[in-house]
């Protein structure tokens, strides 16, 4: 296990390099003159030259790439085109809001999914099972841009219980976190159920039951532990989806996080900011993936890594 962890940490280096290079290429592959795209065709030549110089676009591509890598090593992601603010500072200011939103959404998702999925699996083929799975399906089937306006209509406008948008206090977190968490809760509950059913159908469960162990103990100690493994992978994968979902959710609720920053940057063609946001979102996901894989290996000794 120690060797595996060490190897995975070493492999982080090429992954991080690959991700940053892809992001660099993404921005520089844009056909045409990026300066013209950013400033518009009618911009004054002097302004264009100044911007070109500021972004090092007057240098050859390899030189730009080296400058990009050097900046990366020192956390210098350049400056926004529209505010004099360094990109890294804007991202750092937005990070806590997104972390808060993602964490709240994850907690909501797990708090719904594990009991709901377990209940459905244990009470398989009963009315409870069907009711629980219908709820889960409903969660999966409601995209956040459908759910959000409905929630706003009911809880913010009709009942006036919660703020429509913004980030002020815990109350403003409820609707965005719920919007973001419901889909994940639906997916996870379904996975908990199907994974648990898979395990419950295996011989060692029959043996455990034949030994006379109480059913809840078999479910909790024998079945859930094994059922957890594919769920771990899914939670990891879902976190990426959560970050993507944050772009839509944050935009709808005016939540001042990374997703909204990224979308605004894309709309205003603020390429240094886009580059920085994509990079940070991607690197966050790489680390989450690593943690998922390590947990996976820890949880399932059958998965032998050599």
């Amino acid at each position: 296990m120690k060797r595996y962890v060490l190897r995975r940490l070493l492999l982080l280096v090429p992954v991080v390099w690959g991700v940053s290079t892809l992001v660099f290429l993404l921005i520089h592959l844009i056909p045409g003159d990026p300066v013209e795209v950013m400033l518009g065709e009618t911009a004054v030549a002097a302004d264009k030259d100044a911007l070109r110089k500021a972004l090092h676009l007057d240098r050859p591509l390899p030189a730009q790439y080296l400058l990009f890598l050097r900046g990366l090593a020192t956390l210098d992601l350049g400056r926004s085109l529209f505010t004099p603010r360094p990109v890294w500072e804007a991202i750092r200011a937005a990070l806590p809001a997104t972390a808060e939103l993602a964490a709240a959404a994850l907690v909501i998702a797990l708090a719904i999914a594990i009991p709901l999925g377990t209940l459905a699996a244990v009470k398989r083929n009963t009315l409870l099972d069907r009711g629980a799975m219908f709820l889960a399906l409903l969660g999966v089937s409601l995209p956040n841009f459908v759910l959000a306006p409905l929630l706003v209509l009911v809880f913010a406008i009709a009942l006036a219980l919660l703020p429509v948008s913004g980030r002020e206090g815990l109350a403003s977190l409820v609707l965005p976190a719920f919007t973001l968490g419901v889909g994940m809760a639906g997916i996870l509950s379904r996975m908990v159920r199907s994974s648990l059913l898979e395990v419950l159908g295996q011989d060692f469960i029959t043996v455990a039951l034949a030994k006379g162990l109480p059913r809840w103990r078999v479910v909790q100690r024998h079945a859930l532990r094994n059922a957890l493994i594919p769920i771990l992978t899914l939670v990891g994968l879902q976190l990426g989806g959560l970050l993507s979902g944050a772009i839509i959710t944050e935009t709808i609720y005016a939540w001042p996080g990374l997703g909204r920053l990224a979308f605004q940057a894309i709309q205003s063609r603020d390429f240094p900011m886009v580059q920085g946001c994509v990079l940070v979102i991607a690197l966050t996901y790489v680390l989450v993936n690593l943690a998922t894989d390590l947990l996976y290996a820890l949880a399932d000794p059958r998965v032998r890594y050599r």
Partner: protein
Amino acid sequence: MRARGRRHTGVAVGLAVLAALLVAAVAAPLLSPHAPTAQALREGLHGPGPGHPFGQDRLGRDVLSRVLHGARVSILVGAVVVGVTVTVGLVVGSVAGTAGGLVDDAVMRLIDILQAFPGIVLIIAFAAVLGPSLLNVILALSLLGWVGYARLVRGQILVVREMDFVHAAAALGAGRLRIIARHLVPNILAPVIVEASFGMAGAIVGEASLSFLGLGVQPPTPSWGTMLNEARNYLLVAPHLVLFPGLAIMIVVLGLNFLGDGLRDMLDPRR
């Protein structure tokens, strides 16, 4: 017997929804009471009524006709994206899972890098580079879509390949290709097919998300996502604009999930 009957019900419901979507898409021009782009400005934001069972949008266009035509975009994107991504995922995942060593490492690192791009970010970047269009939406969803299948296939193969029957096949002299095709893939196909039905739902939602953000199908072509985006500004005065395209997406995704569930139970020989 009752359980068997019910799982067939799930598949039947799912297939029925898919069939309805297909009919709506193919026969949209015949079924629509109005042209999807025909405006009637003086009837803007009118609620459901005679002649317009789903009401009218800001420009007085018939919402029912637009929902029906929106099905064309949804099913096209869903079918193409799933076809491409499942095929690529199966091939890549099997190779990585059976080869092990350097090949596995290289593929997994590539998957890590590709999965490190949260889908929508890449798709948005694509829209910025290539300009938003239906083809670019399909391209962007497919470019990343196979990665999840590949990871799933590889993970399943890692477990299955350690099972006795695979060792037995190898001991009997079966070649690698034969082991993959005859012993590994059939035993891991069930979760892939189930994932594919969710993948189709995902592709449909993905298209709608992009169009919602203004980066997918461009007006005046009706797409459920575009309709929802326009509806957001009239939440109070015209909630029917959110309701009908929202319901359409929900029913289609619900149906695909029913299908996936039912298929899962039918394809699993252990039950």
